[in-house]
């Protein structure tokens, strides 16, 4: 199979607001049918980039190619993109049916075809029969569905979603996450999601671009992003990451000496950054360490420490463990299993570790 032409190509996109450099050379390709997320803290430029793709912001230099065409000077109403706004922007003076049909006004469709298309779109988002409902009589989740139906009815090449779930409560958000993924698979349209919620991005995306200060810090699939962040900052932003002090040596292969854990050999791809030897920080995820109980099989690499803090979550327990010889504690997540006690603060604990899980930030 030949590689498909990407639906969106961002070529060295820069955006200035006066002196403020909001986008600093964004280059990325987004494939047909991909669920792509722009993830970053507020002010990182992710929304600016989304709005630039939609045509609401002009870019200062670079190019945005959409379906092979340069979008420079193309107004938002002539771009093959549609947007789901953060506030949903449901027209309050129109009912659900007229909201969804809004974009069809210039389609030249007959009234009967329109009614049919609106019905299908509402059915698709699970709002069949809601057509006559007034806009203000909708709940948050329903507004979101109307916004989705209204955007998807035009069959855009790309659907842009600006923090679409941030206004919903936690339960509703989780429901909508799953529904969005299903919907995206169903329609096969490229989705670009802007979010500051790393969990949301990990759950939903095929690929994620993590943005800091107007630059893409890392662009990877969720698993790689989580397992092998390219910088300490990305590691901290995505999920929870512990950092231990250590020193990196290179003689034949790489090895690290970690305060509190000991010495271990590591593979070259685990070393990110400049690769310079000497003092480094070693990143490890909470689930890559595990506390050993008496009935566990003997483990090759173990370390000991004292429990500083216990956070009980029901299915999981988080322990803050101060390893003997380490300056700071590490957070360890343990699945709660029947027959295993939850340790108490002040208890001694032994943990097993595996150097393959480490990422060394030089």
């Amino acid at each position, binding site marked *: 199979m030949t590689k498909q032409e990407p639906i969106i190509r961002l070529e060295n996109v820069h955006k200035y607001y006066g002196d403020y450099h909001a986008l600093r050379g964004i280059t990325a390709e987004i494939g047909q049918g991909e669920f792509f997320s722009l993830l970053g803290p507020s002010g990182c430029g992710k929304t600016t980039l989304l709005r630039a793709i939609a045509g609401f912001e002009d870019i200062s230099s670079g190019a945005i190619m959409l379906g092979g065409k340069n979008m420079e000077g193309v107004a938002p109403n002539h771009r093959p993109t549609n947007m789901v706004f953060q506030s949903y922007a449901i027209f309050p*003076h129109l009912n659900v049916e007229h909201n969804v049909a809004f974009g069809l006004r210039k389609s030249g469709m007959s009234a009967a075809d329109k009614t049919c298309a609106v019905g299908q779109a509402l059915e698709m988002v699970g709002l069949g029969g809601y057509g006559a409902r007034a806009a203000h009589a909708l709940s948050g989740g329903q507004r979101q569905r109307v916004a989705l139906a209204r955007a998807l009815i035009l069959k855009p090449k790309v659907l842009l979603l600006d923090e679409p779930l941030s206004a919903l409560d936690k339960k509703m958000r989780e429901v909508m996450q799953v529904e969005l993924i299903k919907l995206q698979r169903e329609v096969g349209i490229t989705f670009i999601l802007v979010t500051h919620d790393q969990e949301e991005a990990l759950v939903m995306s095929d690929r994620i671009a993590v943005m800091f200060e107007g630059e893409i810090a890392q662009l990877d699939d969720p698993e790689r992003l989580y397992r092998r962040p390219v910088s300490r900052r990305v590691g901290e932003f995505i999920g929870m990451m512990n950092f231990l002090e250590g020193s990196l040596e290179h003689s034949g292969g790489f090895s690290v000496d970690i305060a509190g854990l000991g010495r271990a050999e590591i593979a070259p791809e685990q070393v990110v950054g400049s690769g310079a030897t000497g003092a480094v920080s070693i990143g490890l995820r909470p689930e890559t360490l595990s506390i050993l109980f008496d009935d566990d099989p003997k483990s090759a690499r173990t370390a000991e420490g004292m429990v500083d803090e216990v956070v009980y979550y029901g299915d999981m327990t988080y322990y803050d463990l101060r390893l003997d010889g380490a300056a700071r504690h590490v957070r360890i997540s343990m699945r709660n299993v029947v027959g295993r006690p939850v340790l108490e603060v002040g208890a001694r604990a032994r943990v097993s570790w595996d150097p393959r899980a480490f990422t060394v930030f030089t």
Partner: protein
Amino acid sequence: MKGQSLKIYVVLYLVFLYAPIVLLPLFAFNSGTVIAFPLQGFTFGWFIEVFTTKALVEATRNSVFIAVSVAVLSTCLGLFAARAATRYDFPAKGGVVGFVMLPLVLPEIIVAVSLLVVLIQAGLSTGIWSVIAGHVLICTPFSIAILQGSFANMDKSLEEAAVDLGETPLSTFRLVTLPLVAPGIIASLLICFTISLDEFIIAFFLSGNEPTLPVYVWGLLRFPARVPVIMALGTLLVALSIILLITAEYFRRRGLRRTGKRDVGGFL
């Protein structure tokens, strides 16, 4: 005890506000020509005179024409200015908006005299059109103030959503912006109409030989025998105002019901 004194205060306040207005119909239906108690007899005569006095009908027609023109012009200007002020950033925005709003606090007499001087210097005649110009000048700031509120309450992404769904900026204005700021537009039309209708100073200076109603009424005061006619006219205007107010409130409440917003404030 405290509640009692507040109630008395409210009653006194309302008497102070409305006693003069209650006197209007009282003397309008009084057959005596002198505005004094005791009342004489009941008559519709003054009302008939209102409609049969040619100059008065003429002045009323001038005033209504001016007020309608001013309401429409000021609201159009206010609509554009308010949208610009709430949606766009441009150099010296604060200064520009400030200057547009300035007539709100300028003494009308100064505005009137300056306009008259300008017209005379330019060699233009005064009349209905110059009153319209003067009134638009003082009404536009009110319109802007009202419509800025409407625009500020409107989610900016609604307009973006319409453009995103394929509408041009112009059709977006028609399909989304206008319906959503309609309550503000109606309020602005009513306020501008009312301000223009009873404005005296500018009309006095600029109306030339086409007097407006207030200018004509002022002229009538020199003839004591005609004062009951003014009372009858006043009664009609008060009745008209109440009808207008009720209509405006009806539309405002209907608008609120339609968009499902909670009622805050309003006239009644």
